[in-house]
């Protein structure tokens, strides 16, 4: 978090800041401030002290005439710096205690226009997204030979073929659906799952789509558009079995998950042994670990509970990135629009199973699949997640798990991300936006060093 510190240093230091002929740095004004990285580019600013115009004035009221004193013994000085987001309230309290010459601390938010929110028109289209990924395509990285599982509410290949102008199919023999799900693979109503498949194919048009419509479960307790976590456990067990059946030198599977749990009331409370949201030992979180250990690259959407304009379904009052969406062995994906600005609904960290969530950001809120009709965007972190999953599938084209483990893949994606927001990691954008040029450059360096 960027902060402005109002300090009252010795009068001679204030005098130096006030004097236009003298250049005083933030370091000279404040010295080292514990836990704060001072911004050396921000010239300290003198602030006059308001003094009641009348000697009998109320020293604590702003409702009176004032004179403003720039006398060094009265004035204060502003410096700027950054302080860690985690436990911000206690950090600020400790800071004020550690440095009595700090007389005020305030946040210094980036001044920006209203972020993109749910219901807003598309920002750009999928060709803009595709344009940012040309480096992958020119290296021949298109997802060929890679299994790309869309764990969602089903894919409609006829719709995808029509929008993309080419034949799209799913690998029905290796797809999975909960018992009792009526429709055939690739023939589900055009909806969220078709959007996810479309967005994954932007970077990985050669990947083999696996249709895994767990959100179409008809099990008691589920509804038309919701599955139960037990269905996802069964789906992940199926995917793990598939992966283990592949020859080791060909193992390459990416699993997209643009779904999650919105309400803590659907769960046992944190601390209960059966809890899901905060419990790495919940069976689904163990299933995620087992699938990753078998070699899958697993991506989860961060969720749509961002502070600026959360989805109306959000029930978590804080730390909405929960359960497997915050699992240490997955990439958790936040959303940015094609102007590279965070969309206001993209959930912010820290996560519940892992603090550093989201991991990365990817494009969303663009016109793409038309799954929700003409003029309506592919939106939510639901769209950002498959955009990133497609990039991971593209990287896997020539790098099976034997060459690059899922953990190494996550490191590659994080390390090459284009940093957005605050310098380094932050809870809005993670390590930054997935960056195709950065990835291809890293892969070239890898090859130079004698590896695939």
């Amino acid at each position, binding site marked *: 978090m960027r902060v402005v510190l109002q300090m009252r240093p010795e009068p001679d230091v204030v005098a130096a800041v006030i004097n236009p002929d003298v250049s005083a740095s933030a370091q000279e004004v404040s010295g080292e401030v514990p836990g704060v990285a001072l911004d050396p580019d921000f010239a300290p600013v003198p602030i006059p002290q308001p003094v009641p115009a009348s000697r009998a004035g109320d020293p604590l009221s702003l409702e009176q005439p004032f004179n403003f004193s720039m006398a060094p013994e009265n004035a204060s000085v502003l410096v700027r710096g950054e302080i860690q987001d985690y436990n911000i309230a206690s950090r600020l309290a400790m800071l004020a205690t550690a440095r009595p010459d700090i007389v005020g601390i305030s946040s210094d938010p980036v001044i920006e226009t209203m972020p993109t929110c749910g219901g807003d028109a598309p920002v750009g289209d999928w060709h803009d997204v595709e344009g940012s990924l040309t480096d992958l395509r020119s290296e021949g990285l298109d997802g060929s030979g890679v299994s790309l599982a869309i764990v969602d509410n089903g894919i409609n290949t006829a719709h995808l073929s029509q929008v993309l102008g080419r034949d799209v199919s799913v690998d029905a023999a290796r797809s999975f659906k909960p018992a009792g799900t009526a429709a055939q693979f690739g023939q589900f109503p055009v909806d969220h799952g078709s959007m996810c498949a479309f967005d994954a194919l932007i970077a990985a048009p050669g990947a083999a789509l696996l249709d895994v419509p767990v959100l179409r479960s008809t099990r008691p307790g589920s509804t038309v558009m919701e599955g139960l976590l037990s269905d996802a456990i069964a789906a992940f067990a199926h995917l793990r079995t598939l992966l283990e059946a592949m020859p080791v030198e060909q193992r390459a599977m990416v699993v997209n998950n643009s779904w999650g749990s919105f309400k803590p009331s659907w769960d046992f409370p944190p601390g209960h042994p059966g809890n899901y949201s905060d419990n790495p030992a919940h069976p689904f979180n163990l299933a995620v670990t087992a699938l990753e250990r078998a070699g899958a690259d697993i991506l989860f959407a961060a969720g749509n509970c961002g502070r600026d304009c959360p989805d109306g379904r959000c029930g978590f009052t804080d730390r909405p990135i929960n359960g497997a969406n915050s699992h240490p062995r997955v990439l958790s994906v936040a959303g940015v629009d094609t102007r590279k600005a965070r969309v206001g*609904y993209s959930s912010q960290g820290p996560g519940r199973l892992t603090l550093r969530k989201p991991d990365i950001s990817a494009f969303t809120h663009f016109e793409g699949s038309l799954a929700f009709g003409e003029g309506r965007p592919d939106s939510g972190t639901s769209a950002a997640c498959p955009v990133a999953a497609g990039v991971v599938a593209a990287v896997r084209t020539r790098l099976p798990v034997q060459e690059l483990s899922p953990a190494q893949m996550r490191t590659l994606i994080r390390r090459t991300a284009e940093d957005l927001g605050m310098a380094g990691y932050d809870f809005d954008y993670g390590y930054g936006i997935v960056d195709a040029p950065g990835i291809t450059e890293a892969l070239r360096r890898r090859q130079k060093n004698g590896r695939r």
Partner: protein
Amino acid sequence: MAHQPPTTLITVTLPPGSTLQDAMRRLGIASGEVDEEYGLVLVDPEQQSYALLVTEEAGARLQGARGGHGPHANPRMEPFGPPSPPGQDRSPDDRDDGGA
């Protein structure tokens, strides 16, 4: 008594290659108390942990059964999109009661 749907998620530790019948025998569960369509799902081969769905009553009976764990939360999962416009809650209050 009304028929209870088997939606309670439990896990059991069993040897590799175990079947639903093995799990039911181990946990003392009758055939009407388990979701046979869901079956026995291998969650984690390393821990030899299997999942199954049983009735709430059978799940409650398991407390302390050898190798049995649970009940575990089995919450609803929803797609993360499209996000609703600010101020619109698409989730009626009466949907707050399910899951765990």
